[in-house]
């Protein structure tokens, strides 16, 4: 299965397309998906390039286990140098694209250069074609996919596409597939737009072979049973990722009015249960037994009728709590709009919430906002601002390059109110009561981001013994504590690096459920599918290699320990409301710094966050970056 998988190099400037086999040695070092993408990113990109130049390379990678019948194995990893942060650009997308790419004969694509006119790529049964796409330009992300299917007369084509935001080089434009799936973060849609690349379409009929098909099938069945038997998966199957809101908002762990409050009072309409009013059923990505998104229909209102999918917990915060909109319908409309335009939901909501706080504080006024009254809870302003960002109109244009440039343009102390790290907006979670989460967003290689580590297991009141067993060292059971939390973050970072490289879904590993598949199960799945034999320790070392490669990339781009920090408000402003467990909490500067030291040590990096020679040797990263492939 593994040895005959291919990578295609596509130069959009010259039209040259080269195909190569992905070497087995690279598999043993980086598996596939995110792992191989990070290897390619570090080795093929020249340092300090302009992310919007021809020299940036967009990498698309299917996971090593892509296509197996369990654990949502259709994940695709997309990477480039981020035009939003200048650091690692990397985002993971579900849906059905990655398996189709594999059926078309490829595991990886590396796209460089810039097309003179808009184009799309068609990857079909061993061949890559560059197609003219002028007629697709200005089409939204839904229309684009439909037209490609009509053009090629093939309903089974799956496409990664960009919308208005990507075309207009909004720095946090995303890449989308299907009605709902998005590689949301770090602005990879902007990279596609900069290359005049409207879409990447895939279609194939090549079978995927496995080393032990019968045993693999039986083990996959067990994996589906394992994940669907967890309480988390059962609740998620019913109401989607929005169920997290029940816990976080009830306790007081959710950013409200940007960062002024940590709980949305009178937020009952945003409770996940209310999606039932609009839902016609749930929907699953490829190979997923959990099916965490809703298919919803809005029958009334100015945007009706509309059919949408989702929304995720993320959108509940981006267009709900953070901007103080308290209606489920607002979330459904805004979710639809960002999907249509191809904007990252989280970055968009984060910027708008920040702008609303600046407006309230009088730092910006109607002159700057084109007369828009950026008042909390004003959904019409929210919808209009989403559109203005996507089309770079007026005030939207000021936000469209992300936090860093917006702070520069606005000035007047606006930086203090920005909840961003390395230039990227944070999720709507409030990490002041949870030091583990706080460390995770500070150290994430792609900027403020909860999905590099999401260390949530200590929130379930589990005994310290069990935590020790999972994490291989002491971790305090109390989630307010700082003790052992660096270990949690480190361990989860390695686990997710491997998960993303196998192409399976993070929700179906130790994410919110303890008794979910992890190292041992991954090891067995890999062996049955490919005959590669990796022990738990070996897989952890691969995770470490991937994470350290990302670190090396960021160091080369000029990031350092000073960038692994939290916004100042985390240290200064205590959480004002919520249950006692979440109220009156700030992050302690000194303890945070100690956690960071411990965290670097666990990775084998020095006190400045630079991997030591010993670590580089252990991870076979001592050579200068070379184009191995």
């Amino acid at each position, binding site marked *: 299965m593994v040895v005959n998988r291919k990578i295609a190099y596509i130069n959009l400037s010259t039209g040259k397309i080269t195909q190569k086999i992905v070497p087995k040695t690279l598999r043993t070092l980086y598996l596939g998906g995110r792992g191989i993408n990070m290897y390619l990113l570090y080795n093929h990109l020249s340092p300090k390039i302009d992310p919007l130049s021809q020299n940036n390379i967009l990498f698309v990678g299917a996971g090593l286990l892509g*296509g*197996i*019948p*369990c654990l949502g194995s259709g994940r695709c990893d997309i990477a480039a140098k981020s035009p939003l942060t200048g650091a690692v650009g990397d985002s993971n997308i579900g849906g*059905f694209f990655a*398996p189709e790419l594999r*059926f078309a004969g490829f595991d990886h694509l590396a796209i460089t250069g810039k097309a003179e006119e808009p184009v799309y790529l068609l990857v079909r049964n061993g061949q890559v074609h560059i197609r003219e796409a002028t007629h697709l330009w200005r089409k939204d992300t*839904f229309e684009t*996919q*439909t037209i490609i299917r009509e053009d090629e007369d093939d309903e089974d084509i799956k496409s990664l596409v960009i919308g208005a935001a990507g075309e207009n080089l909004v720095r946090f434009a995303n890449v989308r597939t*299907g*009605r709902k799936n998005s590689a949301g973060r770090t602005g990879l849609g902007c990279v596609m737009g900069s290359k005049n690349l409207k879409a990447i379409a895939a279609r194939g*009929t*090549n*079978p*995927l*072979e*496995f080393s032990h*098909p*019968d045993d*693999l*099938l039986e083990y*996959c*069945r067990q994996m*589906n049973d394992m994940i*669907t038997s967890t309480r988390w998966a059962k609740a998620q*199957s019913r109401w989607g990722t929005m169920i997290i809101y029940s816990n976080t908002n009830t306790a007081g762990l959710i950013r409200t009015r940007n960062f002024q409050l940590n709980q949305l009072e009178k937020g009952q309409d945003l409770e996940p249960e209310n999606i039932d009013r609009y839902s*016609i*059923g*749930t*929907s*699953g*990505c*490829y*190979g*997923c*037994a*959990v*099916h965490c998104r809703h*298919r919803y229909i809005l029958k009334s209102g100015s945007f009706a009728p509309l*059919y949408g*999918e989702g929304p995720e917990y993320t959108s509940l915060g981006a267009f709900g709590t953070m901007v103080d909109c308290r209606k489920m319908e607002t979330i459904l409309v805004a979710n639809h709009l960002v999907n249509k335009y191809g904007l990252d939901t989280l970055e968009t909501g984060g910027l708008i919430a920040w702008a609303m706080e600046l407006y309230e504080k009088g730092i910006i006024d109607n002159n700057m906002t084109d007369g828009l009254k950026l008042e909390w809870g004003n959904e019409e302003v929210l919808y209009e601002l989403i559109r203005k960002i996507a089309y770079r109109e007026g005030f939207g244009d000021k936000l469209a390059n992300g936090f860093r440039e917006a702070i520069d343009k606005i000035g007047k102390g606006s930086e203090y109110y920005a909840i961003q790290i390395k230039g990227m907006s944070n999720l709507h979670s409030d990490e002041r009561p949870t030091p583990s989460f706080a460390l995770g967003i500070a150290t994430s290689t792609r900027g403020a981001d909860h999905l590099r580590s999401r260390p949530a297991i200590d929130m379930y009141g589990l005994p310290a013994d069990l935590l020790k067993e999972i994490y291989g060292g002491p971790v305090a059971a109390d989630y307010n504590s700082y003790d052992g939390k660096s270990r949690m973050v480190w361990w989860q970072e390695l686990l997710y690096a491997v998960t993303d490289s196998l192409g399976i879904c993070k929700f179906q590993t130790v994410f919110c459920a303890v008794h979910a598949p992890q190292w041992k199960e991954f090891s067995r799945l890999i062996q049955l599918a490919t005959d590669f034999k990796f022990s738990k320790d070996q897989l952890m070392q691969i995770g470490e290699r991937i994470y350290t490669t990302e670190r090396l990339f960021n160091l080369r781009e000029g990031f350092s320990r000073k960038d692994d920090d939290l916004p100042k408000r985390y240290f200064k402003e205590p959480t004002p409301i919520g249950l006692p467990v979440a109220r009156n909490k700030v992050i302690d500067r000194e303890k945070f710094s100690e956690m960071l030291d411990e965290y670097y040590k666990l990775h084998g990096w020095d006190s400045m966050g630079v991997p030591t020679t010993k670590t580089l040797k252990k991870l076979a990263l001592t050579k200068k970056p070379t184009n191995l492939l």
Partner: protein
Amino acid sequence: MLAIDPEKCTGCRLCETACSIHHEKTCSPERARIRVTKWENEGIYIPMVCQQCDIPICETVCPMQALRRDTKTGALIIDYKLCVGCKLCMQFCPFGGIGVNEETSKIIKCDLCSGDPVCVKFCKPEALQYLQVIALNLKKRKAAAEKFSKYLKQMLTAL
């Protein structure tokens, strides 16, 4: 029989994947006996598979009499020793329940996995169920009656 409830289908295609691995030893939806037909922009997903008809057109049109019924499961099975691959069965089936493995040119169709269908084992939302015909009828009757009983209760409380 293999009962399909499209309202419960989430479109994940685990049935296709599992089916192809079980029968063909590779992951290839093209070679799966069951396929999920989708209207992605409307959110409608319908699994399509051989209905094992009581009056099977495939069997009628087969010039080689290569289709026979498994007395235990009721599935229509292809006898590959007789099949000449003319594809008449495929052309006449009103459900698209018969396919071809493009590589081997072999006709493929659902054989109910000798009475233990793999697709059902992978379908967590229970959009696919393997039931006795009578049991399915009872289930459908009960579901319809439940809706009816709700209206009745509403009417009674309104009085």
